Structure formats: structure tokens, C-alpha cells
């Protein structure tokens, strides 16, 4: 009987000592006053925060191109995605709503990770960590394509992906995260750089440009542009993006700019633009186009230029210039690929 009493006392004592010198109560996962800024995330997640600050998500409200295209957000429907309310508050896959505060933080940590009070508050993650101060509950929705689609399908990107081979479950399956949030080299989680249309390396990896004379006797050059790397159309994001194929006679100076002739515009019409066709190159598809070039005229270069805004402008006046009249796209577009065709 005595030994039983001894065991009970030992248990009680060890419990009490544990309470004295143990880790103590877990901190409240939500800071006093709640999560009100993504800057609060930096303290514990400096690397992720640094990645995000370098990303275009962090510039969605301040990027000069966006401000210009949205007429400084006078087009108020742009605000919904460029400064969205927390996605969990409206629901993954649902249209987002505009928020009223910290717009300058753009698409920030809280927009994607913060949970509304109705879901318990705090922030969510794709994995949990009981040692983390914010103790994020696991929300697998964060990893789903629909989650990105709340904003990115406003310009049809998710629909384009769903129509592609990448969306078929199996070996070739790839979704948004595979390309735009890859696992870091050190395996410490997924990148929050969200590399996309602003990253020329990624843009270059999406398409292959080829040009050739199918028949040396013919005065035609055949150009093909194959979208083999993007899980959506090239370029995606209607209105905002465009690409143009130009050609010119190979100049004697390899560094020469200008002298180009416009061959083909790749773009999706926007809203009331009823007079232009959709010419995007869907995932896995190939665009083919010919142009006349006498085989006796020497070598020609064919180039693909990419634009983050659809308009070419005069650098001095700012006036829009019709793309078909552009001879020096280098001044207002980024070179993706250039190939040469010998006579």
C-alpha cells in the first residue's frame, strides 16, 4: 500500500516539477491586435518574407505598369485582385473582393494565409509546426489550383491550364506550384518568388522559335512557335501581355537594333476589343506563319519579343504606336528568342 502511495506522490511531484520547469503554456498563435500586416511575418520567416518582397505579388499595388494600365486604379475592378481581401474569407476558387487597408502590401502573406474569425483566426499553412509561434493549421486549399484561380483565372489562366495536358492526373501532371512555387534547392519549402511573366528565363523556357526555308527555291520563310513549357497559353493574362514576331535582314553589325518588320501579334482581346482576334498559343500548341523573303536576299533574322503591356509607345511623347508600324521593338519590348535563316 505504501509503495502505491509513493508512486502517486512521485507522479504528482514530477507533474508539478514539469509544470515549473517545462516549456510552459504555448503562446497565443494570434498576436495581440491580430495579424494586421505582412511585416509581422518577417520576424519568424525572414527568407520567405525576403522572397515575397522581391516577387511581383508584393508590387501588385505599386508596380508602375499596373498603375498605368488601370489608370491609377481608377478602373476599380482591378483593385479586387491587386489588393484582395483574405482569400479564405471569400473562399478558395471564389472571386476575390477588394480590401480597404494595407493596399500598398499588394498580394501579401495575409491575403493568402490569414484565416477569418469564423475559421478560428490566425494564419494557415500547407504544413503545421507546433513549435512555430503562429501554429498554422493545415489548409490543403492553399496548394490547390483553385486557390490561385481566384485572381489568376480572372484572365483565364486556370481555364487554359485545365484545357492542357498538364491538368491530366498522371505522370505529366503539373500545376501552378510546380513552375511558379518550386521546392527550394535546399528542400526547405517552396519558393515564394512566384516567378512568372516578369522572369525572362522562365518566359524563354516556355517557347521554342524556329524559322526555315522549307524549299530553297521558294521565296518563303516558315516560322513556328511551339509552346512546350508553359502550362497555359503563351502569353497568358489577356490584355496585359502580348508577344510579337518580327523579322529583318541580318544586319552587318550584330549589335544593331531596329530595321524589323512586324510579322505576327500574339494576344487575347480585352472587353470591348471586338475587332482583334485571339491569337494566343495554347499549351502544347504550335503557331505557324510564313512570310515572303527572296532567297537571293541574304540571311534573315526572326525574333520573338515579349511585352508586359500590349502597347508600344513613343518614348518621347508617350503616344501609342500601332504595333504593325514598329521597326525597333527593342525599345519597348523584351527579346525572347532570335533565330537566323540562311539564304
Amino acid at each position, binding site marked *: 500500500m505504501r509503495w502505491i502511495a509513493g508512486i502517486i506522490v512521485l507522479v504528482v511531484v514530477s507533474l508539478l516539477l514539469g*509544470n*515549473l520547469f517545462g516549456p510552459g503554456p504555448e503562446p497565443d498563435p494570434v498576436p495581440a491586435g491580430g495579424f494586421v500586416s505582412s511585416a509581422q511575418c518577417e520576424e519568424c520567416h525572414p527568407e520567405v518574407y525576403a522572397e515575397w518582397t522581391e516577387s511581383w505579388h508584393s508590387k501588385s499595388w505599386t508596380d508602375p*505598369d499596373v498603375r498605368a494600365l488601370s489608370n491609377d486604379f481608377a478602373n476599380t475592378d482591378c483593385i479586387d485582385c491587386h489588393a484582395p481581401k483574405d482569400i479564405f474569407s471569400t473562399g478558395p476558387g471564389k472571386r476575390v473582393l477588394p480590401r480597404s487597408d494595407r493596399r500598398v502590401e499588394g498580394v501579401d502573406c495575409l491575403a493568402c494565409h490569414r484565416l477569418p*474569425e469564423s475559421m478560428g483566426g490566425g494564419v494557415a499553412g500547407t504544413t503545421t509546426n507546433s513549435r512555430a509561434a503562429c501554429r498554422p493549421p493545415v489548409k490543403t486549399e492553399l496548394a490547390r489550383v483553385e486557390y490561385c484561380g481566384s485572381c489568376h*483565372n*480572372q484572365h483565364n489562366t486556370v481555364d487554359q491550364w485545365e484545357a492542357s495536358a498538364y491538368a491530366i492526373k498522371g505522370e505529366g501532371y503539373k500545376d501552378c506550384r510546380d513552375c511558379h512555387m518550386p521546392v527550394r534547392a535546399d528542400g526547405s519549402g517552396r519558393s515564394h518568388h512566384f516567378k512568372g511573366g516578369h522572369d525572362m528565363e522562365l518566359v524563354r523556357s516556355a517557347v521554342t522559335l524556329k524559322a526555315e526555308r522549307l524549299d530553297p527555291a521558294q521565296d518563303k520563310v516558315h516560322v513556328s512557335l511551339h509552346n512546350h513549357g508553359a502550362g497555359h497559353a503563351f502569353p497568358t493574362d489577356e490584355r496585359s501581355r502580348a508577344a510579337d514576331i518580327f523579322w529583318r535582314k541580318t544586319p552587318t553589325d550584330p549589335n544593331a537594333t531596329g530595321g524589323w518588320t512586324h510579322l505576327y501579334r500574339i494576344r487575347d482581346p480585352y472587353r470591348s476589343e471586338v475587332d482583334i482576334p485571339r491569337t494566343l498559343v495554347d499549351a502544347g500548341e504550335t503557331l505557324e506563319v510564313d512570310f515572303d523573303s527572296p532567297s537571293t536576299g541574304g540571311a534573315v533574322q526572326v525574333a520573338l519579343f515579349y511585352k508586359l503591356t500590349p502597347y508600344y509607345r513613343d518614348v518621347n511623347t508617350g503616344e*501609342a504606336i500601332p504595333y504593325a508600324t514598329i521597326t525597333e521593338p527593342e525599345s519597348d519590348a523584351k527579346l525572347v528568342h532570335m533565330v537566323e535563316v540562311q539564304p
Partner: protein
Amino acid sequence: MRSAHTLILIGALALASCREEPSVPPAPPIGLDLGLNDVLGARLADYADADPRRAPWPEGLEDSDLSMVQGLLATLAGSNPRYADLARQDLESLGLSGLRPLLQCLDDARKDGKNTAPTRWFIARALGPIPHSQAALALLDLAKLDPDSSVRSMAIYQLGESPLAPDWVVPHLCLRLKYEKDPECHRLLGEVLAKHRNYSFLRAWFDLTRSPDSAISTPIWTSLRNLEAQTGREGSDLAKAWAQGEGLDQPEPSRAFLFEVWTVVSKLSSAHFQLRGVDDARFALSDLGPWLATEIAPALKDSDLYVRLHMGQVLQRHGPRGKAAVPALIEALGDPDLAPQAATTLAAIGERAALQPLLTAAGAGNALDLRTSAVQALGTTAWPESADVLRTALVDASIPGQADLGVHARCSLLQVSPTPEIFDTLLQQLEELAPGKDAAELAFESMLQRRTRAIEPAATADKDWEHWNQMGQRFGARPSVPGLAKRRENRAAWIRENRDRLIEAAAELAASR
């Protein structure tokens, strides 16, 4: 041994009692009873019987022969004017029996790859006098979607001449104001809208009267003079009355119109994904008369957050015309999801009844998004009673994560209680193109604009305002990155140059309230 155990236990208990109790997390907030319900669904059900798409077809009515109608249209679209008059008379004498064949011909003409604009034009003309809402719907479709401006013009004109005088086309015609590029279509849109005493088109008309091309400005001037003669009011007076929602004799909307309004509201619900349709719906509703505020105010309590929020945005665009919704908006300040938008909308309407609720909303202890919006709202209204609350908000903005609050508090204080320090911080914000530069630019703009209305003599204020606008002219045909940067640089330099004078002017303006 027993006593040793007891000692350890007592000691441990004593030590444990010294340790602070673990903090108990606060209980989750009790769900607010906002009295939400399916307002949209109920209204759609109420007015469903008036849906113009379900208008009954007259029993026993026999359709005209399709081939005959096709023949008449072929004659009309042909070039021989000798037979055209006869064919037109025949076509127009068909009345209701010609409706379905005409709609069939319209469908065929649209599918035809050839240029069928003349045929569509004659169909529009023939549909006009037919007293059935299916005819009006077809005309509306042509007015909205036909690629040929002459066909759109005819369809719009016929909607104004329809024997049904369908007021339910008004929101759709208002939306055309957003997309229409043809001046003649704009002129006709205005004439039809004026028949329903909707004057939202006046902005576009005023713009067109300033066209250097007399072929554009002269017909608009003529229509404007006619309108002034009909209403017995100057065009500018009418535009002001429309903006304020006062002194307008508004017709009672038909049940079909109300059904159409709620159908447009439904496009704002969570069931709709694409933002473009949402903005179109907001636009269409924003250009309706002052009666709309009373009609949609109950939707601020719809169970669908999307409906509630977008109704707030629509009323914001109404501005003073939406004053009937002020009590509902003040109540909406208690809805955590809607409150920031409600604050913004109350400021846009500008009724003094909102002062105390906005001061409360801008105070410490409220959610940051509500507080930020209320602080901005108090800058919009520039009521002098706001100064203390704004100064408190500026102090509180030093708390990490609340920088946004500070930006907006400074912008609002420029309107309400400007000091050289506030002025200089905003100027620096604009000069450095720092975050909040757009807010700073808007704050200076707002101050200069209000000054043109408030300060006597106004000559200097007017000149400053004109100069500010000249610097703000778009760089190039469309807004552009260099254009925006250049505009802000120019404006910041001008403010710097006139700093002392403008600080004085801002203080004088605030004192004049």
C-alpha cells in the same frame, strides 16, 4: 518517508502557486446578429412575373410567311429605291405577326458571313413599332452588340420610339455609355434615356460638345438645346440636379424595370466569378436615378457578402444621389465585412448625419480596415469636427503595421486641419514617389479642387486648379508609366515652388469650413 513526501508535495504546490496562471485565450467573438437574409432572392421572386423575357405571346396569332419577310428584306437591302418604299410599308404593316419571322431573319443575318448590316438595319427599323417586349429585347441586343454603328443607332432610336416605352431598357442603355464609341449612338442614347428622365448621359454629351469636329459637336448641341427646351432647364443645371439627386421629377419605375434592376444585382452575387461582368453591373446600376437608393438599401443586409459589398460600391458611385440609403449605411458600419465600404460610401454621399458614426468608426479600438476607411472618409467630407480624431489616428499610426493609417490621416488632415509639418510630409511622399504617393497626390488635388468652390476671390484658386489639371494631362493617348511619373514630378515641383502660398491657402480653406 511519509513526511518527506508531504514536504516535497507542499513545497511544490507552494512554488506552483507562485507561477503566473497561463493566459486564457479570449473567447471567440460571438457572431453578430446582423439580421441578414436573402434580399436578392426575395426581390427576384417578387418581380418575376414582370420579367420582359416571359411576356406572353398573343393566343391564336399566326406568323407572317417567313419567305415573304425574307423577300421584303432582300428588296430593302437591295439598291433599287423604286421598290424600297413599298417593301418598307409592307414590312411595317405586318405588326406582331411579323415579329417571329423578323427575329428568324435577324438570326440568319448574324450567322451569315457576308456584310448583312443593311439587312440588320432594316430589321431594327421594322422591329421598332412592334408592341411586344421580344421586339424590344431584340433591339436592345442590337444596340449593345451589333458591330455596325448605323445598326446600333437605329436600334437605339427604335427603343425610344417603341409603343411599349420600355423603361426596363434603361440600365442596359446606361451600360452602353461605358462602351459606346460612336458619337451618333451617344446622342441617341441620351435622347432615349432623357425620355425616361435619366440624365446620366450628360457627361458624355458635354464631352462631345467640346469636340473640334463640328460634325460631332453640332448634332449634340442641337440635342442639348432640345433637351433644355423640353425640361425648361439649362443643361448644366440638369446635370447638377442629377448629381445631387434633388429637384428631379422621377417617374415611378415599372415592375419590369425593378425586375431588371434585381437581375443586374444578381450579377454581383458570389455566384459570378468574372470581375468584368461585375464591373458592368456596378456601372449600370450606378447611373440610375435617386429612387434606386431606396430600392437597393435593403440589400445592404443581404446574406451574400458580395451583394452587400457591391451595393455599397454602387451607392458610393451614386454619391449625393444615394442619400436615401444613409440610415442603412450607418447601420452597415456594424457589419465587420461591410463597414469599411460603408464608411467610404457615407463620405461620398456627404450627409452630415454620418459625421458622428464616422468619428466613432475612425476611433481607436476599431478594426484597422474600418479605421483606415473612416479616416479617409473624414478627409473626403472635410468636416472640421474630425480634426481631433484624425490627429489621434496619426499618433496611433506609429504602431507597427499601421503605417497605412498614418498616410491617410495625413491626407485627411490636409483637408481638415493642415499644418506645415503635414504639408511637408505629404510633399515628400509625392516627391520621393514613396508608397502612398497616389494618396498624397489625391490629397493635394482634393484640397485644390475644394478651394475653387470655397475661397473668395476664386481667381487664384481657379488658376491653381487649372494649372494642376494641365500638369495632370495624360502623357500620350493612354495613361503610361513615364506619364504617371512625369505628372507627379511636375506636380511635386510646382507644390515645392508654391509651398508657402499653398500652406496658407490650405489653412484658409480649412478655416472657412
